């Protein structure tokens, strides 16, 4: 415990700016989201009509919403699995004391600085149906013409690749920081005992990294749910059809394009439930860690 300064008002004064921001811009609007989800805005936009839970029943009866939910889960699962597994392997290689690794490290973490929207722009070029390099390479190798503007599955794969690629830098940074915490002696001892590198990775490195892995699971899931809006907006806009319409994109469409406020608010509430579950998990299993986001 730190020494105490005795001052009756100062701590409140110090806290007041943060607390004011949280209350005004975060807590109150969230409560309003919940409130609005019980209303429908009249056709002329001038009146709120109380409709009880009908926005929610409409939501869960909507095929489009279920579709969006399933796509989001597939997308999130893929992004999290690809991003984390690649990053942990690469980070453990980058952590080896070999010549040139420091330079390579910088090159590998730099996708961290790229925004989802810019990552989307670059991958839209890679997948350009007429002259994109990836489309060209696949055609040369397999004779297949990829067209992500026509095929929903290809579009989904494209946004998964773009989103995982963007997150790789972030994941590698955290795994590198986690790896620095593992004492070298531990791995050396195992090495002397004759454990192969692969065995050391699975038996020592991976278990010791599990707090980092868990933290990244949460952060990557949040990313896949919320941060990918720009990427989707730039690449597919939810299409073709509704093949890549993830929850956040659907929320934007219903809330700000078709202006169905109550219906969109109900979607916000569902998203809140997701985040709440994730947050509880996070605090339960990784309470001593700091979260970045």
């Amino acid at each position, binding site marked *: 415990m*730190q*020494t*105490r*300064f005795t*001052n*009756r008002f*100062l*701590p409140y004064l*110090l*806290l007041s700016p*943060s*607390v004011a*921001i949280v209350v005004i*811009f*975060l*807590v*109150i*609007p*969230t409560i*309003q*989201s919940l409130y*609005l989800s019980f209303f429908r805005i009249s056709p002329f936009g001038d009146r709120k009509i109380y409709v009880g839970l009908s926005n929610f029943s409409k939501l869960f009866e909507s095929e489009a919403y279920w579709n969006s939910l399933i796509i989001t889960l597939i997308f999130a699962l893929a992004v999290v699995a690809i991003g984390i597994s690649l990053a942990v392997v690469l980070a453990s290689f980058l952590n080896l004391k070999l010549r040139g690794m420091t330079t390579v490290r*910088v*090159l590998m*973490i*730099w*996708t961290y*600085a*790229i*925004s989802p*929207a*810019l990552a989307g*722009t*670059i*991958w*839209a*070029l890679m997948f350009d149906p007429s*002259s*994109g*390099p990836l489309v060209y390479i696949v055609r040369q190798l397999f004779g297949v013409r990829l067209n992500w503007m026509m095929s929903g599955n290809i579009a989904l794969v494209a946004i998964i690749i773009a989103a995982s690629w963007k997150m790789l830098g972030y994941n590698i*940074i955290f795994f*590198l*920081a986690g790896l*620095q*915490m593992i004492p070298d002696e531990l791995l050396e001892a195992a090495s002397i005992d004759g454990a192969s590198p692969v065995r050391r990775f699975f038996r020592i490195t991976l278990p010791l990294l599990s707090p980092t892995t868990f933290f990244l699971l949460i952060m990557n899931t*949040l990313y896949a749910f*919320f941060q990918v*809006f*720009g990427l989707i907006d730039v690449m597919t806009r939810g299409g073709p059809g509704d093949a890549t319409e993830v929850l*956040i994109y659907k*929320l934007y469409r219903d*809330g700000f394009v078709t202006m169905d*406020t109550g219906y969109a608010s109900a979607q*916000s*509430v569902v*998203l*809140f439930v997701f985040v709440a579950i994730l947050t509880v998990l996070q605090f339960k299993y990784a309470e001593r860690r*700091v979260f*970045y*986001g």
Partner: protein
Amino acid sequence: MKKSTQRKIIVYLVVIIALIVIMFPIYYAITMSTLSLRQSYSYPPRFIPSVHAAQNYKTAWNTVNMGRLILNSSYISVVVSVAKISLSILAAFAFTYFGDFKGKFFFFGAILITHMLPLPVRIIPTYELMKAFDWVNSYRALTIPFFASATGTLLFRQLFLTVPTSLSDAARIDGAGPMRFLTSILIPLSRTNIGALFLIEFTYMWNEYLWPMIITNTPDMRVVQIGVKMLLASEAAAAEWNVIMAGTIIAMIPPLVILLVFQGTLLRGFALKEEK
């Protein structure tokens, strides 16, 4: 061949392949930004840079008024980073150096709850609030709602908890008040974390897309991310990829520079927080 040499070769091979795969999109984006429109549509695609870079970057810059967009993005990113860091230092200081004042845990919870409320769960009411404040299309709307930081508060709190008690004892004996102690001892001690946090928050704000898109509606208030989208969308018939990529490269440079400057800090800043 020795086993260890074999292993080294495997490691380097994997790393090099990974590096090529990770860097190729960037390489191709840069190459594309140097091609003429005709070259950009050649089939098979051209993988070697050409000489039209100046033209493309100029076009990208002028088409969406990039100077203004960069100014806006820089302004909001710096303001938000500085505000977040300052507010979280103040809050962390209150939480660590004033014992158990009344309501401490309530306030701590209130700040932590930020984590649970990402913008999408409150986006419509926040937008309505901006309308009520008459803040739509203003810098205030682009910055102030982002000022609270649970991350920063936790980070600084953890750091302050590891500061030796002897320092604050000495400060008290010397008659220095709490604010004096904060500014002349704690803040200088937090340099690494401030650097790491600046990198994180600057990048976060620079890359923000959804909120600026909703809350701004005139070209002079747009940010860089939206500018690139405008380049992408402005071509009616077919995308002018060479110009779009020029815009993309311009938009990614500032956070990249900051990452290069602070990347050491970032690793150390994170490593530090692990101590408990």
